[in-house]
C-alpha cells in the first residue's frame, strides 16, 4: 500500500515546491523590504516583469556579480502575479533569492509601498549598502553603478 502511494506523495510534494518559488508580496511586506534599516548587508532589490526585456539584462548582470562577490544579496520582485511562465524566466539566472511576486493586494498599493515616486517603469532597482544608504535606479544597470551604491567590488 505504502509503495503504491509513494509516487503520488512525491508528486504532490514536488507540486507544492514549484508553487512556492515566489513569496506573494503585499503592501506591508513591500514596505519592510524597501526599508534601508532592514538591510544589514549590501543588497539589491530588483523589480522585473515577464514583459520587460531590459530586466533580463539586469538579472544576468546581477547573477554574474553574485558569483564574483558572495557578499552581494539579490532579492527579486516580479511586478505581476505569479503565473506558470514566471519561474522558468527567472530560474535560468540562478539567483538564490528570496523571490517575490505581486500577491493579492492591490497592485497600486504594493507599488506605492515599494516607492511612492515610482511611475511603474521597469527595470526599477533599489540598492542598499547595508549601512542605511539606499539608491534607486530605473533602467539598465552597470557594474560600476552597483559598486558605487553597494560599496562592494566585483
Amino acid at each position, binding site marked *: 500500500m505504502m509503495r503504491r502511494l509513494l509516487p503520488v506523495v512525491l508528486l504532490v510534494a514536488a507540486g507544492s515546491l514549484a508553487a512556492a518559488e515566489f513569496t506573494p508580496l503585499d503592501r506591508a511586506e513591500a514596505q519592510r523590504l524597501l526599508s534601508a534599516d532592514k538591510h544589514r548587508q549590501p543588497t539589491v532589490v530588483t523589480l522585473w*516583469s515577464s514583459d520587460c526585456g531590459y530586466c533580463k539584462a539586469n538579472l544576468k548582470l546581477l547573477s554574474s556579480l553574485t558569483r564574483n562577490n558572495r557578499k552581494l544579496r539579490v532579492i527579486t520582485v516580479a511586478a505581476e502575479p505569479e503565473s506558470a511562465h514566471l519561474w522558468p524566466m527567472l530560474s535560468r539566472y540562478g539567483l538564490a533569492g528570496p523571490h517575490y511576486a505581486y500577491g493579492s493586494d492591490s497592485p497600486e498599493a504594493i507599488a506605492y509601498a515599494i516607492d511612492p*515616486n515610482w511611475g511603474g517603469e521597469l527595470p526599477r532597482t533599489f540598492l542598499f549598502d547595508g549601512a542605511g544608504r539606499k539608491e534607486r535606479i530605473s533602467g539598465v544597470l552597470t557594474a560600476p553603478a552597483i559598486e558605487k551604491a553597494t560599496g562592494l567590488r566585483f
Partner: protein
Amino acid sequence: MPGMAKATRQELGASAVFAPDGSLLVVTKQGEHVMLYRSSDDGKSWSAPTAVNAQPEQISADGENRPKVAFAADGGLLVSWTRPLGKPYSGAIRLARADDGQRFSPPLTVHKDPAEITHRFESLLTTPDNKVILAWIDKRDLEAAKSGKKAYRGAAIYAAVSTDGGRSFQPEHKLADHSCECCRVTSAIDADGAPLFMWRHVFEPNERDHALARLKPDGTVESVQRATFDRWKVDGCPHHGPSLAVDERGVRHAVWFNQKDGAGRVFYGRLAAGSGIAVEGQRQVGGPRAAHADMAVAPGKLAIAWKEFDGERTQLRGLMSADGGDSFSEIALAATDGASDQARVVRRQDQLFVFWRTEKEGFRLFPLP
C-alpha cells in the same frame, strides 16, 4: 456583476464603445475567450455575455494590451486582440467581425508575417469610408538585426489596412522603426480625415518621447513626427502609453506619461501641426501618482480621465474643458480598494462618459457633465 474578478487575480483590461442604438458594449477576457457584454441602461444591468472567438485561444488583457471594440462604417462590429503565442513577448493580432453585431465570424490574423515574434499592442481605427486600420508593435526588424548581429533601437510599428470593413486585410507595412516595446498605441482621425497613430518612441540615443504618424488615404505613411519633447532617457519599459483625440475644429489633443526633470507625470498638450509638431498648452494632469490617462472629445468639450493612488485607495478622477483645453475643471468620479483597469473615456453623440472596470465593483459607467 459582470467584470468582477474571481478568486485568482485575472487580467482586467477592457474596452468600451457605444453602439449606434445607444447601448454600451464592453469587451474583456474570460479564460481563452474574448467576451462581449451589452448594457441598454448605461451600465446598470448587463446582458449575458457573447463569446467573440468560438474556438478558445490565449488572449492578452492587461491594461496596456487589452481587447478593443469598434464599429466599421458599414455597421459591422469589430473586436481585436493580441493572441500570445508560445515564446515570450510573442503574439499575433487578431480581429473578429459580426455583421449583425451579434454573431462573429472566426477571427483572422491581420498580418501575413507568421513568425512567432512580437506583434502586440494593437490599436484599432475605423474610418468613414469603411476602412479598418490596425497598427501594432512589431519586432521583425529587431529580430532581423539580431540575426545579423546588428544593434536595433526598440521595436517597430506596422499597420494593416482593410477596405472592406475588416473582412480582409492588405499585406501589412511599416509605419516607423524604433518604437518603444510595450506601451499601448493610440489612434484618431485628423481634421482632413487622415488616419493618425501615436505611440511612445525611442529617439536617439534612448529618449522615450512620443511619435505621431499621419497616414495617406491608402494607409501608407505620409509623415512621422516627434510629438513630445520631455526627453525621458531610460533603457527600460514605461508600460504607459498615450491617448489622442482630434476635436471638431481639427485641434489635436493628447495625454501621455513621461518623466520630466526627474519626476514621472501625466501631461496634457495640443499637438499643433506644421513642419514639426509644437506642443501647446502642456500642463500636468493630476498629482504625482496620476497614471494611465485616457481622453475623448465631443462637440464643445474635452474630457480626460485617469487613476491616482492616494496612499490607501485608487481614485478615478476627471478633467473637463469647454474651451478647447485652455482651462479645465477637475472632478472626483470614484475610488476602489482593489486592483483596477485603466479608465476609458467613451462618447455617445454629444455626451462623454468614463468607463472603469475594477476587481471589486466590476463594470462602471460615469456620465460626465
